[in-house]
């Protein structure tokens, strides 16, 4: 056997403890741009919601029409109403104390909105400017990821992977916080692929197109927006639901990063390098050498 063989083998199949390249530059840039963009979009969007904190289904919807979701207030309480379900949210939603100690009855509180004081015009400036960043960066990322084959290599779901038994086994592993070690940690498992793909191909496109459907000018140019979402007010409801779904992804994402080792995960998204989890194998010591 040629002498160079062992090191080549090490490179081709890295094991636990090895530092491996995990995320491309394009992925890392897009990831951190999204952190900023999605935070600004959500916080300014919540301020826009405050201007009319009711959601409807259909083409039209205003105060006299039935809302399926509302954040409202009585004199002393705040509440969230979804269909017949009403939850009191005094102190957080609908009725809260601002940074100056005054009671405010807007839907979302100052610490989660941009800007912190009620201002629809400014919130729209932020939201509509960053909408361009979100849309253009998603398009660019999709183009780059097709060209560098990131989607094909890392997101293709094989027939074996999507079998119920396999998915179920993966769910059980996640629930028990048993994460893959060694070389297996270099690939996305099926739940990761599904989560990532649903953000890329479902949630982000949904939130962008429902957002476009809210523009009266776009509705005239792309009337199919009104047809696929069932009207502007339905699009507004779906826009909000897509935001909640993205927020749900964010919460699970952060939880998994913390559980899987936040330093190592953060490093992989900053420098691209990831230390494969698991115990490195004991060095093999040949008897003859001893």
């Amino acid at each position, binding site marked *: 056997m040629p002498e160079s063989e062992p090191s080549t083998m090490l490179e081709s199949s890295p094991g636990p403890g090895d530092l491996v390249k995990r995320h491309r530059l394009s992925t890392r840039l897009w990831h951190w741009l999204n952190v900023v963009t999605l935070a600004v979009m959500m916080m300014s969007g919540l301020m826009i919601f405050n201007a009319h904190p009711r959601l409807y289904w259909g*083409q*039209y919807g*205003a105060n*006299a029409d039935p809302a399926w979701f509302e954040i409202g207030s009585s004199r002393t309480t705040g509440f969230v109403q979804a269909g017949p379900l009403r939850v009191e949210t005094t102190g957080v939603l609908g009725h809260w104390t601002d940074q100056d100690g005054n009671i405010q009855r807007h839907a979302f509180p100052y610490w989660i909105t*941009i800007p912190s004081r009620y201002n629809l*015009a400014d919130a729209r400036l932020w939201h509509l400017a960053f909408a361009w960043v979100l849309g253009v960066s998603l398009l660019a990322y999709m183009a780059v990821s097709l060209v560098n084959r990131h989607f094909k290599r890392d997101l293709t779901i094989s027939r074996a992977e999507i079998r119920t038994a396999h998915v179920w086994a993966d769910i059980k592993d996640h629930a028990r916080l048993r994460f893959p070690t060694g070389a297996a940690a270099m690939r996305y498992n099926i739940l990761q692929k599904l989560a990532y793909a649903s953000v890329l191909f479902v949630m982000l496109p949904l939130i962008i197109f429902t957002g476009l459907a809210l523009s*009266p*000018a*776009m509705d005239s140019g792309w*009337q199919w927006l009104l047809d696929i979402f069932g009207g502007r007010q339905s699009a507004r409801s779906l826009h909000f639901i897509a935001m909640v779904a993205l927020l749900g992804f964010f919460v699970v994402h952060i939880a998994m990063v913390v559980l899987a080792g936040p330093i190592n995960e953060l490093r992989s998204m900053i420098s691209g390098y990831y230390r494969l989890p698991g115990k490195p194998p004991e060095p093999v010591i040949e008897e003859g050498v001893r």
Partner: protein
Amino acid sequence: MNRRDLISGLSLGAGGLLLGGCDRLNADPNVRKILVGAEGLHLRSQRLLASGLAREYRRDQMSPVFRTNGNTRPASVDWQAHAATNFVDWRLVVDGLVAKPLNLSLRDLGAFPQRAQITRHDCVEGWSAIGKWQGPLLGDLLKAADLSDRVRYIVFHCADTFGSRPYYESIDLYDAFHPQTIMALLMNDRRLPIGHGAPIRLRVERHLGYKHAKFVMRVEARERIDNLYQGQGGYWEDAAGYQWYAGI
């Protein structure tokens, strides 16, 4: 100071920075310039993509209740005298950079070809209402007045005020001559109600509600709008920083 204190101190500081930082960025003139700059992108891209007609709806798709908003009854003595006499002596003035200034009664306005459309009104706040509007095309009035070549904007001077500031709005010629841009005399087949801007209001479909000036008294053709009131082209644009281009 141990490591835990350091970490919690840093994260508290970061949270505080983030909260205060957003407001500080929001107040920064350079940041605002960039954010406001997106308006040009909205306008240019939407002019490219949305050159057609706004969706027109069926009668059975109309809102059962079309709410009012903004001013619902001007305080102006002049306007109130007209309202008391059913607007018989009221005239719409069309002037500015025109060869033939007009002075139109409701009867004159009714003599122009009328367009009826059932369209959706989208308030900047987020709600929508669908109603039927009818009146002469703004473009026909402007053609009758014979615009000068220098005209770039059409300004709508209104009878209603916020405090002492009169409501006004402006659109460019692209929107002024759009086939759905009408001066509505009728709403839902009846004389335009007081709350919706009697006796006449602008309907400039494909724009948010605040562009649709109510209680219009005068239509003025201008070359510039930056030398009018506070220069932003409309009451809400001046008073609260809403964007002049309201297609989004």
